[in-house]
């Protein structure tokens, strides 16, 4: 089985179990403020790391290429409060144009 299939099945099973478990366990178990704080921070650090790694690396090498320009445009669009499709399409267009000029 390819790693794609393992990831698809494994992550789906675990994430469903987490959703279901939340509705089945007593609320007092997770009302600890430390748990709440850690839970609020996890998406921030993981999404940030995903942005950084998917923009500035290829396998185990750090690189600056057409993707970095695309993400820079996405940041500018977000600062300008542009809607999500503008952010994504703006990044894709910028990156595609630079890719065609071999950056």
């Amino acid at each position: 089985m390819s790693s794609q299939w393992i990831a698809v099945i494994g992550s789906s099973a675990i994430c469903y179990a987490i959703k279901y478990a939340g509705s089945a366990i007593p609320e007092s178990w997770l009302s600890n403020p430390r748990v709440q704080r850690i839970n609020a921070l996890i998406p921030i650090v993981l999404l940030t790391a995903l942005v950084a790694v998917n923009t500035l690396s290829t396998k185990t090498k750090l690189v600056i290429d057409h993707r970095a320009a695309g993400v820079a445009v996405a940041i500018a669009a977000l600062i300008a409060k542009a809607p999500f499709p503008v952010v994504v399409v703006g990044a894709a267009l910028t990156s595609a144009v630079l890719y065609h000029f071999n950056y």
Partner: protein
Amino acid sequence: MAVKRDSFSVAFTVGAYGSAFGAAAIANHFSILQACLLSLLLFSGASQFAVIGVLGAGGSAVSAIATASLLGVRNGLYALRLAPILKLRGWRKLVGAQITIDESTGVALAQRDSEDMRKGFWYTGIGVFIFWNLFTVLGAVGAKAIGNPSAWGLDAAVPAAFLGLLWPRLASKQTWAIAGAAIVLALSLVPFVAAGIPIITCALLALIVGWSDRQVVRK
């Protein structure tokens, strides 16, 4: 009826992002079937992007699953918060679990009485599920048809989509600081460890800061 209208507009707008996911999955060497199964079975945007993002960066299935699961923990906490409102039993509990996500929780908790909360949860959850899956197919089939993902900028669309999910969470100086720390930690690990490990390692930052600091996030 306001709750129906709110649910529909959230469902359609968020569902349309599914096309970005479908296209990104193809760009990261997933098949159309795998992209669609992720939207049907995993059904949580950030976790889905994490699966394709980690494997697309060359990471292992284990680090993809671990990253997606950590991102999915918040859905469990939403379920915990919603349980006394929804009071689900039997098959409704099984279905309700699957649509316990950011949007259904957000719309439900924005309502005034528990009747509207229940409606908001179901309308939004089912609505996002339908549109998200529909647009995933469109995005995946479209991306498959156009060929080389770099030529169409899809390799930049993936981090841009992550950024769109992240941006609303960067609400304070402290969250910006921890995001900055995550960038430095992840990139400094890239040359030294297997792909995928730098991302999951950043969860340590959330553990350390969340354990010790009272000021970071108020929620």
